């Protein structure tokens, strides 16, 4: 999963070192346009349905947080 996620983030061309970043949202590294683009990609790649209620900083602040969200939504499916 991590590989797919990294590929998605690389494809988005955001020039950020995602493996080390822990405050993607709180530090404003990902803006709202990036978030929506990322959500679209995640929904397609993992066949999940990320809703408004999931758009919390703690779900997108790091690679690990994003993976946890994807796993949680996959389990709920």
């Amino acid at each position: 999963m991590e590989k797919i996620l990294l590929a998605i983030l690389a494809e988005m061309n955001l020039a950020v070192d995602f493996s080390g970043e822990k405050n993607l949202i709180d530090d404003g590294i990902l803006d709202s346009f990036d978030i929506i683009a990322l959500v679209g990609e995640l929904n397609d790649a993992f066949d999940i349905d990320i809703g408004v209620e999931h758009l919390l900083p703690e779900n997108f602040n790091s690679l690990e947080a994003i993976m946890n969200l994807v796993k949680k939504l996959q389990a709920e499916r």
Partner: protein
Amino acid sequence: MPVTTFAFLLFVSLTLLVYFIVPQKYQWVVLLFASYFYYASAGGKLVVFLIFTTIITYLAGLFLAAARDRKKRKLILAAALFFVFGLLAFLKYYNFVARGLNILLAKLAVFSLPQFKILLPLGISFYIFQAAGYVIDIYRGKYPPERNPAKFALFVSFFPQVIQGPISRYDQLAPQLYGGHGLDYDRLKYGIQLLLWGYCKKIIIADRAAVLVNTVFDNYRQYPGSIVAVAVCFYCLQIYCDFSGGIDIVRGIAQAMGIDLVQNFRRPYFAASLADFWRRWHISLGEWMREYLFYPLSLSKPFFRLGKKTRGLIKGKAGKIIPTSLASFIVFFTIGIWHGANLKYIAFGLYNGLIISASIIITPYFTRLLEKVRIDPHVRLWIVVRIVGTNLLVFLGRYFTRGASLKAALAMLRQTVFAFHARALTGGTLWTLGLSRLDFCLVVVGGMVILILGYLQEKGMAIRKTLEQKHWLLQWLVLMVVLVALVWLGVYREGYIASEFIYQQY
């Protein structure tokens, strides 16, 4: 009780005194009384709208927490939003819509809609947005509702911020409002410093710039394009100092009480794109729009379906980002018409919405173009070019927000472009616009001080903390200079009304 009067300062001082005397568990009660006293004295009978909004959103929170059924919860949310935004829409747009409909009805020769003399209650948008955000958060299950109606009433009416924001979120503000705060010397000091800085921006720069701005905008036909352009520049400075100065005063008062309100400005004139500008200007409104309009729209089923279609039709990134671009357009258009019922605000919304949504689509292609021509987007000169370009776009947008009407704004733009007459700038006209040479220079110097301090902050300097490390004599000297400047340079001329803030009428 305008914020720039002695009565207001006396009221704030008394509130602070009582706030720190009473036991900490009753401090929120002091704030509630002070808030309602302030609102009633500033808004009179219009306090009923504040009470109405409080009751509707308080009950909606409780009902949402009790309801389990999804449909019922949706209905409660929709009803609450309908009532509060319906109230806002009625007060703001009724006369505008009725006038438009009456033209139509006159042609059909049926009845006509009456026009009302509507006074917009002080800060109505700000407390409605704040209260509506609370209801949506409860609906989304972010936190449990506030059960104490008096505590909730304080969250909606908290007196410094009820004037013109910042729009706070319940989970950020409420714990600070209800928890007690002991007198903290540093907080008090920082708060007073911020308050003084806010007053400097408001009464030394904004109110002074306003004199020239009003003269030119009220008689724009008499002036060549170059003078109009100077007036728009002054207006850019005026509105920044007026709004951000007001917010500094509000945040300063709250900070003295031990309450941190969210930031509303982050040096917008250093923005490198129009989207970046709106992330630095009126931040709390931008965040509100993002949370409660942009995200829900972008993730809604119709937008999802649209995304699928556009991806099928257009290959590459553009196909993917068209829905985001459309959602941004809707957000900026909404912000435009939120400013008021007038064609000029519709034009302002379209202007910002179109530029930003187009730039979202263009950006990936533009980045590729830069790579091809080997321009490093991080190089300083390129960033400066972008900042200047952004300021130019903002400057053009200001013709619409300050122009008396859309027609006037377009005429002024025409003058600036086609009848600039640069010579007028040195011909002495500048000194006939209501400001003496000294006042004019003060505004310019004030603007430069703001730019320099902003630049230092952009570089990461914490101005107040840096000052604190200097010799105590220097610290006192700075404080004294600011105080003397305020008393001496504040605009208190005859016929001058202790001025209100531009944004409090929104």
